[in-house]
Every structure is written in structure tokens, then in C-alpha cells.
């Protein structure tokens, strides 16, 4: 397979393309670009009972977005499986060293293989990273009313003060996670 199809894209290619999705979805059908609403639509489809927040017509409100997210899964399969980059990610040397100090040495693939296997789910650190991290993402994005796409891109593109606050929160939480929680959790067995 030609190397050009496998190679990762530099930020100056990926960034402007990512920015186009907010205006594109607005133009296509008055849709606000945002992925986290899908977590709500899926909950609404599965277990809405007794919860006003989840009691609405998820097919009508969220049909387009669920189709969009199904596309994301397909796109991930195309770019991450079929046209997978075989080389380890080219992160900074300091990041490589910092992660090695936490016991993460394998930089192949998109996630640390030591951490995201099924057997890792049976360890405390794997459970906290996958199950705990996932829960915080879902709870936090619902509370904040949007995620990196809905607030970070769409909301900021519409120049919304709430989205700038949320974006600052995303980063504050990320720093807390990176410098306090993750070093502690990765030390657990």
C-alpha cells in the first residue's frame, strides 16, 4: 500500500478540516456539530423511564447525529484499521520519557496497549482508566452541555461565553488528570 495513505496527517491539514465540520453541518441542515448528544440519545433509546432529561423523541431529535456517529466509527475503521499507520506515534521525546516513567513503553497504535486490553479491565488501574474515565466523560459532558466538539468547536465558533468557560474547564480537568490522577492510578496494580 502506498505510504501516503498510511502516514498520519500533520496538524495544519487535520486542524482546518476539523474546523470545517461546524459550518458544513449548519449549512447542510441547520445542525450544530457536537458528538456528546449521542450519549444522551442512546440513553434515551435504552432507559429513559422516569427521567425527564431522557424522555424525548430521540429518533427525531438525534437521528441525524446517530447517523453521524455511526460514520465516525466507520471512519475510524477506515483510517485506523484499513489504512493504519504502522509506525509508532511521533510524540515529543519528553512525552516519551514521561510516559516511560509511568510504565508506558509501547507507543505503537492509538492507545497504550498495556492499558486498553480486555485483561487490563481486571486490574485496578485499567478499570479506573477505562470505566472511571468513561463515566467522567459522560457525566461531565452532560453536565457541561457539550464536549470538545459541541463546546470546543461549535460553541466557540458561535462565540458563546459558556463554551469558553467549558473549554477552560476541559483543560483544568485535563491538567488535574495528567499531573495528579494518572500518575497515581498508573502506579496501582
Amino acid at each position: 500500500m502506498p505510504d501516503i495513505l498510511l502516514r498520519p496527517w500533520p496538524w495544519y491539514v487535520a486542524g482546518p478540516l476539523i474546523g470545517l465540520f461546524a459550518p458544513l453541518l449548519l449549512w447542510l441542515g441547520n445542525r450544530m456539530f457536537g458528538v456528546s448528544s449521542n450519549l444522551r440519545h442512546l440513553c434515551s433509546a435504552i432507559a429513559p423511564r422516569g427521567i425527564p432529561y431522557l424522555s424525548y423523541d430521540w429518533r427525531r431529535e438525534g437521528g441525524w447525529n446517530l447517523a453521524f456517529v455511526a460514520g465516525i466509527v466507520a471512519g475510524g475503521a477506515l483510517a485506523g484499521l484499513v489504512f493504519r499507520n504502522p509506525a509508532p506515534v511521533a510524540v515529543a521525546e519528553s512525552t516519551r520519557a514521561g510516559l516511560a516513567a509511568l510504565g508506558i513503553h509501547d507507543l505503537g497504535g492509538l492507545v497504550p496497549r498495556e492499558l486498553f486490553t480486555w485483561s487490563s479491565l481486571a486490574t485496578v488501574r485499567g478499570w479506573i482508566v477505562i470505566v472511571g474515565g468513561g463515566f467522567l466523560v459522560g457525566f461531565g459532558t452532560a453536565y457541561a452541555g457539550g464536549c470538545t466538539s459541541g463546546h470546543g468547536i461549535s460553541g466557540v465558533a458561535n462565540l458563546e461565553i459558556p463554551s469558553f468557560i467549558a473549554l477552560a474547564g476541559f483543560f483544568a480537568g485535563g491538567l488535574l488528570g495528567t499531573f495528579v490522577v494518572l500518575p497515581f492510578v498508573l502506579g496501582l496494580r
Partner: protein
Amino acid sequence: MTTPVETRADVELDDDDVHELSTEQLRDPSAPGLWIYLLVGTVFGIVLTKGEAISWFRIQEMFRFQGFHMFGIFATALPTAIIGVQLLKRRWRRTLAGEVIVVPPKHLGSGVRYAVGGTIFGLGWALTGACPGPLFALLGSGVTTMAVAIASAMLGTWTYGRVRHHLPH
């Protein structure tokens, strides 16, 4: 808190009791079907993956301020999105099907939900290395344990729905 325009799920269904006022009912029948969103989502998934925005390692590099890659992505994505959305709202004003473009505003309120919810979200982002879009892209790329992370994220959203009336907003 209950003007009709903000009831669209697209941004946030801010009030529970007013879904019947949804603008979905007013939607032009000639608006594009679901297949177009599947297609656009596929392209988005490819860009996220090839741009390494779904890489756990890139997210760590970003939060450690050790590399420019993710900052470069945000620094070019945001101006593109801002210019595109503002041009659509102010200059072109119409969608492909000719509808007037409406961007429902977000309500600031006390701002607590954005600061606290955002911080909780960021903590989860650092641990999983993935926000919601990347969770799904990673699942597609073959990281099957992301199905557990997605299920757990759904449980988180569900839990928020259960306790939201006790939380400051």
C-alpha cells in the same frame, strides 16, 4: 429558560418539558436525509484518526505542553470554524435546502455547570485519552475496550439525568 429555539437536541435540550416545540417539526422535507450525515461522519472519523486527535499519546503530549500537534489542530480548527459559522450566520443565512440558519444560544446562568462539568469532563478526557468523538473512532479502529468506555460514558450521562435537579446550573 424556555424559548422554543433552544429546545433543539442538537446543542442541548435545556428544558425537559418542551420537546414538543422542537424545530424538527418545522424542518423542510427537502432537507438532506440521514445518509449524508453518515457520509460526513465517516469523513470526520477519518480526519480525527489520521490527524491523531484520537491518540492517547497525543492527548498526553498536549496536557504536558510538550508538543505543538494538538495545539496546532485547535489553533487552525477554531479560526476555520469561527469564520465559517459567522459567514453562514451573517452573510449567507440559508441552508442547502433554503431554511434560515438558526444557532440557538447557550444560557450562561451561573456558569457553574460549564466550569464544574467541564472540569469533570477534562479529567475523564485525560484518563481515557478520548472525548466522545474519539471514543467512537477508536472503537472503529479496533480498540474494542472502548465499547466499555462508551457504555460507561452512557451510564455517566444517564446518572447526570437522574441527579441533575440536585446540581447547580
